């Protein structure tokens, strides 16, 4: 089994889908000869030609609008955003045109909007954001946020095959930092299914994307103290895997929710409500939120480090909760 980075896994997933299905094509800024700002589509134009790897003007509403239009004719567009921070430029297309299409007039919109998100790379306020919650709040969209190379490949393939619009948030911190054995055959990871990234009996931590690795690092440290963390990787933030959330709470009775986006209106609030609805009686302690600060993402490394949740924060909160 070849060892692939998270980025190579995404690349391979899209590549395989384009090989498999002639209706899949890529559209975005600088994705052709240049291969994309992060090189996810490197070499695609040579293999698939400029017809299927389309460089566009810097016009995010046009990219999403055109992808949607093409999907109405039965194509499966994969639209790259150079940075997910720019997704606001296409907000109306995504939330009003695309997301409501099936409900309003029965038009499936099998398109994928994908691109790099997330911080810890000192990208500053406009190259580090996690804007997924705007879209979690919009019925009709699916929101996918992989944490591992294996999942990244399986989830991008499932997203391309899905008949609904999927926003696929790649974490740019993970692009080249994580590697694992990834089968080079055709497999998918189904949307809407969480996974237990590490089993543990004492308390659960529910998270996704880059924060999965923060949680796993903390779990190693805590394990030495005899506290066993269960790490649940959501993989898909919309729709949420309600069952997996409830199950882990029933097993450990204590839960921390960890996310990289800002605190207010974050997914932790929604997950807390689900736990309240599904597993209230299983709780032996307060639900703890660990999140970024309620501020823009700061640029300078010490500031950004302060802004983001770190393994030590998890360790501190887990100790408190374990002792509760």
């Amino acid at each position, binding site marked *: 089994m070849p060892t692939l980075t998270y980025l190579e896994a995404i690349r391979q997933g899209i590549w395989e889908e384009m090989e498999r299905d*002639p*209706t899949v*094509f890529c559209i975005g800024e600088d994705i052709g000869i240049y291969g994309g*700002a*992060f*090189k996810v589509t*490197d*070499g695609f134009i*040579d*293999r*698939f*030609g*400029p*017809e*299927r790897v*389309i460089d*566009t*003007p810097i*016009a*995010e*509403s*046009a990219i999403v*609008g*055109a*992808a*949607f*239009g*093409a*999907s*109405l*004719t*039965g*194509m*499966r*567009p994969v639209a790259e955003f150079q940075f997910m921070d720019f997704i606001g430029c296409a907000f*109306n*297309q995504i939330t*009003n*045109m695309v997301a409501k*299409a*099936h*409900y*309003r*007039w*029965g*038009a*499936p*919109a*099998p398109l994928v909007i994908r691109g*790099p998100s997330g911080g810890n*790379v000192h*990208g500053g306020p406009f*190259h580090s954001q996690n804007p997924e919650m705007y879209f979690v709040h919009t*019925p*009709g969209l*699916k929101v996918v946020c992989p944490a591992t190379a294996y999942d990244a490949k399986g989830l991008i393939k499932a997203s391309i095959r899905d*008949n*609904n619009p999927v926003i696929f948030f790649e974490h*740019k911190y993970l692009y*080249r930092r994580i590697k694992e054995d990834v089968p080079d055959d055709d497999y998918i990871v189904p949307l809407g299914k969480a996974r237990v990234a590490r089993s543990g009996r004492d308390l659960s931590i529910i998270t996704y994307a880059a924060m999965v690795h923060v949680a796993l690092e903390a779990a190693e440290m805590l394990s030495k103290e005899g506290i066993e963390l269960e790490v649940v990787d959501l993989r898909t933030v919309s729709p949420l895997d309600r069952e997996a959330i409830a199950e882990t709470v029933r097993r450990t009775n204590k839960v921390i929710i960890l996310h990289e986006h800002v605190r207010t209106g974050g997914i932790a609030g929604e997950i807390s409500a689900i736990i309240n609805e599904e597993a209230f009686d299983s709780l032996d302690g307060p639900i703890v939120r660990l999140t970024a600060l309620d501020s823009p993402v700061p640029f300078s490394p010490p500031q950004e480090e302060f802004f983001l949740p770190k393994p030590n924060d998890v360790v501190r909160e887990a100790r408190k909760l374990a002792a509760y």
Partner: protein
Amino acid sequence: MPKKPKARSHSNHRASRASRPTTPASSSQRTYTILDYRLERPRIELRQVRDGDTVRYEVSGDLSAPVPPIRESKYLGKQQCIEIYRWMLLNRKMEAALENLYKQGKVVGGVYFGLGQEGCSCASAYALEPDEWLGPLIRNQGSLLVRGFSPRDIMMQYMARAGSPTKGRDASSHFGDIQKRNVVAPISTLGDLIPVLAGVALGARLQGKNIAVMTYIGDGGQSTGVTYEGLNFAAVQNLGLVLFVENNLWGYSTPADMQFLIEDLAERAIAYGIPGVIVDGTDPCQVYDAAHEACERARRGEGPTLIEAKMMRMKGHAIHDAAEYVPKPLFEYWKKRDPIARFENFLVNVKKWLTPAEHEKLLAGVDAQLEADREFAVASPMPTPESAAGGTYCEEGCHEVKPKYGVPTVKSRKAPATLRAESAVHLK
């Protein structure tokens, strides 16, 4: 000797800039061409003036100019003209029926009218082939009729009935059909249909077919950024978009000259590198000819066209709006240019393509159709409350997604052996 790489133009590469300038050798002035089909060029001005304690609009110019004739079409024959005329009548009379339904309290929300614009809606949509696509705006109810929706569909939309195309979920012209009629449902937000229709043309081209796709934008809506994004994208990608800029002089209560400074919105085409055409939007023959030529260009794979249709919104923004801000003389000027009265005169008196008896019969047929549709729509049930739920997502088995024009042909090429430098990436 190494072979010189062959320069190839790709299908998504711009063929040539359509609105090329001409620069006479003796001058540094460039000239561009805008095709203008109109038989009159009204010069009418609108100003904000203070009148005692209030500010109002005042109109000036040649308001007594004679009404121009209908311009003979280069393409339309007798039968086609009569068909278009019938669509226009159906459009107008359907809207009158909607107004009555509103007064009877049967309409949920407001009613939007295309009064004075029926020729533009109907003759433009008439230029499309059945397998081509249209994205209507709120006033293009006539375009929807031409695409094959019935008055009862539109009536049920306005009355929020279970049998409406959106099953009660959306109002007015906000519906579409990807199976048969190839209509993209508009959203309220203006301008967003433009890139979507461009994308439809892109999808078709990837499946091996250049099609014409048509949508509309108002003198007000064209101020949006997405209008620029969408049309520029279509231009650069050489997609067969036919964009009708319906300049009806008002965007809600704001006159067109507070939306843009140039004389004619068709001039915008120059800056996109595409052809720009001006038509009298109250003359269905001009509208059709321009639309037909733009569609043919689209089918040849030569890219988009911007057509500005000049006309007047003959009612308020919607039924609640009495349009008291519009100076009366402006209404009177355009009332004389009523598209239906003039087309009737053209067909009955000028061309004698319809005898008065045939004309009466045609009118009676339209009335009978509308009466039957009105009765059907009024008798149809409201949706159940529970039908609000479900259908937000396309679930397993609810739709099959397959290419509409044929499976794209894929060239087999070798994959590149190695990837380029992994080092020079934006942020690590």
